[in-house]
């Protein structure tokens, strides 16, 4: 399906929102305003945006520890996200979850996750629900290269395959799992080949090209909605920043030459180039979007800072559903 200019500009805006959000979140963390740790999605924006652009609002996704990008791309409100990072009571999870556990069920974002590989079975279940509902809904699990070494990956793909579940397994292969390189810890170079074992299609795309990601996702979504079952979509990408930003950042274990290559395949710059070349936008119009996004993120931070903290005893609520 060809994308309309308006959709393309929305995709651009979302990618810039993710990058700006994560930059500012890291700054706020280092300034001591956000506790804990944040896992930056910068460099991988094309994956979340390419995939989520092929989804409907009712479709459901599960995410990872690196979840801000997926959450924004699925349509969550950055004000409530930022308030959650700041540990405030009007954050998405009322301050109970923080960066690694943002969810917005109203837009089909079933949650970021602190456990590597945990989202795959959950998305498989969301796909099962969609199949049983019969409304043509699909589910997506985002996960990393490292997660594809967990049993949950292998069991989920097999289950989805035998039941022909409407699910996309979207692997963001950034070649590192915290301090471990994929080269040292993974039996295959392309994770997509693992689909062969479970008899489902596996494709590898350039995960820094939002249109390539969109195209692969769109095809897989179509398959899923038609009852043809799951697809494994591997997106080759790179994380620009540390595995996690913390108050005391550890050294980056990756070779500096490799880190320097990241920004040379900037998904946003690539897409901006495409948009101007195609006459969908001008440099000025994109700059204007950048400015609007910066203002929106500023507003989200102001909102977070002005938001109330939870009461200590609020810790005792939400243990069980009413």
């Amino acid at each position, binding site marked *: 399906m060809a994308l309309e200019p308006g959709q393309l500009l929305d995709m651009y805006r979302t990618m810039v929102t993710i990058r700006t959000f994560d930059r500012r979140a890291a700054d706020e963390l280092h300034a001591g305003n956000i506790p804990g740790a944040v896992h930056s999605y910068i460099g991988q924006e094309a994956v979340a945006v390419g995939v989520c652009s092929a989804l409907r609002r009712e479709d459901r996704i599960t995410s990872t520890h690196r979840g801000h990008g997926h959450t924004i791309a699925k349509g969550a409100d950055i004000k409530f996200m930022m308030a959650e990072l700041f540990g*405030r009571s009007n954050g998405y999870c009322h301050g109970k979850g923080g960066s690694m556990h943002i969810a917005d069920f109203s837009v089909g974002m079933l949650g970021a996750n602190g456990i590597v590989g945990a989202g795959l079975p959950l998305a498989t279940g969301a796909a099962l629900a969609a199949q049983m509902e019969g409304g043509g809904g699909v589910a997506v699990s985002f996960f990393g290269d490292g997660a594809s070494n967990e049993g949950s990956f292998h069991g989920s793909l097999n289950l989805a395959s035998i039941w022909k579940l409407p699910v996309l397994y979207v692997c963001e292969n950034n070649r590192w799992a915290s301090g471990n390189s994929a080269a040292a810890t993974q039996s295959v170079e392309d994770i997509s080949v693992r689909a062969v074992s479970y008899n489902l299609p596996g494709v590898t795309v350039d995960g820094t090209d939002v249109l390539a990601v969109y195209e692969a996702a769109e095809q897989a979504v179509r398959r899923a909605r038609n009852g043809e079952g799951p697809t494994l979509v591997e997106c080759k990408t790179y994380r620009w920043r540390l595995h996690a930003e913390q108050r005391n950042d550890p050294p980056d274990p990756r070779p500096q030459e490799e880190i320097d290559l990241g920004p040379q395949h900037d998904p946003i710059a690539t897409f901006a180039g495409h948009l101007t070349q195609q006459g969908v936008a001008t440099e000025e119009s994109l700059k204007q979007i950048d400015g609007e996004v910066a203002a929106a993120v500023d507003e989200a931070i102001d909102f977070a800072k002005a938001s109330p903290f939870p009461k*200590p005893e609020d*810790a005792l609520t939400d243990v069980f559903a009413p």
Partner: protein
Amino acid sequence: MREVTYVEALMEAFTEEMRRDDKVFHLCGNHGPLAALIPEFGEERVRACPISEEAYVGAGIGAAGSGFRPIISPGMMTFAFTAMDQIVNQMAKIHYMFGGQAAFPLVFRASTGGGRSAAAQHSQSPHPMFMNLAGLKLIMPSTPYDAKGLMKSAIRDNNPVVFFEDQILAASPTKQEIPDEEYTVPIGVADVKRHGSDVTVIAISKMVSQALAAAEELAGQGIDVEVVDPRTLVPMDVPALRASVQKTGRVVIVDEACLTCSAAAEISALITEDPATFRALKAPPKRVCSPDVPIPYSPIMEQFCLPDKDNVIQGIREVLG
């Protein structure tokens, strides 16, 4: 004497034991500080594993039953819940089920505890679950000295030993003097961290520092607090705990785990079901634990949940009546 941090103390234990026995090797989720062992021992004996906890935890058990002494380090305990079949059904039962035919000498070490705004999944205190498995020894050291000595004993032990390192203690720059000579700390022996006569506070892992801070503060008010650290939860040094309580007649048990079925609950039972200790009690035992909720992210709520010095003082005041 030298001063070392908690992690440095553990690293010394690894180095000494790896030199002593070439069957000792590491399987870890991430090299982290263990990378310092590679120049001397090689990557063969310091293996970084894929994120396949079930596979490498199980591989450690298999290697242990085949003549090696692995030290398995998935990082946080929360990561290794993905390996719970290997831990619960294999590690804990394998020696017993097969009638004691083979020993499974391994150390399974992981970090636990909250206090870093890391939210529910990364702030857990699951040691009571492990106490209830039957078949696993369980150590939770509170100081660098104990960490080194107990790690050496754990590596030499012929059983699976679970070794939980509190996240905050493991990251702490605080140093403690340890002897230059080699030493071990025996498994199953409690340690009185402060002598006192009015009330016994039994505290586990990071809670020992909270108990000592409470004791310090109350000393100024004429209340003499004894602080006992079990150090090992399985086997528990029951005689030492009972002896202290028989002396003071009052006991507060401080444990970061959720209250229900906490280690504190077990210790409370061990104290009260012994007739002599029961008769010595001047007040019911008091558990100071986290409430029965997953640990929340926002620091205000997290601090409310995790026991601290003030909660210990409040507990002490309660048993003093």
